[in-house]
């Protein structure tokens, strides 16, 4: 029979990259993102007995991540977009996308990342963020609209 540590290793640890990817888009510094994910995983470990095997571990972990994010007061720092120092040299297109994403308000950016990158449904996102599904849908719609607006001039520039 696997120990609790082994179960945690199998169930929770594989989601570390996804958590870190999203955390890096939420926090102003790369080290803050790592700290946030570390805190998330330790909170998950502490509450692992309550986790029901077979349920959505990824959604459970993201819910913990966002709770930790709010509890840590990191949201207060988010007037400034994530530091560009966190990104390795990247292609022009990716850089533009990163800039456009970072320019989105936090709520819109969060919903878009969870939907487009992590593949959560609006229902699941509503559960993770503890927000009504209608709010999630409207934030997602606005996020896509804003992103299109930001990317359009860049695309025109590219064709000149």
């Amino acid at each position: 029979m696997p120990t609790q540590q082994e179960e945690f290793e199998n169930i929770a640890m594989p989601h570390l990259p996804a958590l870190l990817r999203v955390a890096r888009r939420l926090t102003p510094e790369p080290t803050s993102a790592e700290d946030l994910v570390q805190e998330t995983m330790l909170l998950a470990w502490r509450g692992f007995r309550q986790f029901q095997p077979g349920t959505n571990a990824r959604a459970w972990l993201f819910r913990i991540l966002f709770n930790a994010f709010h509890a840590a007061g990191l949201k207060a720092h988010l007037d400034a977009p994530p530091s560009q120092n966190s990104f390795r040299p990247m292609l022009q297109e990716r850089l533009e996308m990163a800039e456009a994403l970072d320019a989105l308000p936090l709520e819109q950016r969060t919903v878009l990342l969870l939907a487009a990158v992590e593949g959560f449904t609006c229902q699941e996102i509503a559960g993770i963020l503890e927000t009504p599904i209608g709010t999630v849908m409207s934030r997602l719609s606005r996020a896509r609209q804003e992103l299109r607006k930001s990317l359009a001039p860049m695309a025109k520039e590219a064709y000149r």
Partner: protein
Amino acid sequence: MTDDELDQRVRESILAEPIDTARVAAVVRNQIRHRTRIARWALLAIAAGLALAAFFWPRTPSVCVAAAQDHQHEIVQGEPRRWLTDLTAIESLAEKQGVPAAAIPALGTTGYRLERARLCFLKKQIFLHLVYTKDGEQYSVYLRPLTEEASFSDSVRGSEGLAYFQTKRVTAVFVSPTADAQAFARAGARVL
């Protein structure tokens, strides 16, 4: 650009960023190992504490167990014995035994009255056995002058149906299988 196409571009862009989880994973694993070790030590400490508590926990004195058995035989099963029923005679017997006679009527708590008394042996020690009654219910009080070897607590102790304590003057055991022996004992402690 459709929603799906836009999402696809976002996804490709984000997933192309290199993610290094090695440091975080190492810290998390290390912390979990550390916390597991602490939890194991805490469990061991609790288990050791419980074992010690169980070892040193005050057990019911054997004289109290004997009193409970005596009550069962003499009162519940009604084995024939010679009893004194006259209050004056009972008080006189109490005085001879060194038990404060004036407290005897007062030992009956609300509604209970002294019914009978006799001397008995509990663990080779003489006790004055008093029986109080109300509406067919009875409880017993066993009294003995305090001696050097008495080691009861001066606060009321006991379990369901059995309570005991000692004062500067007496050792007292209360047995009441049908009512609250500790309540009787607490009332008794005020007059003995």
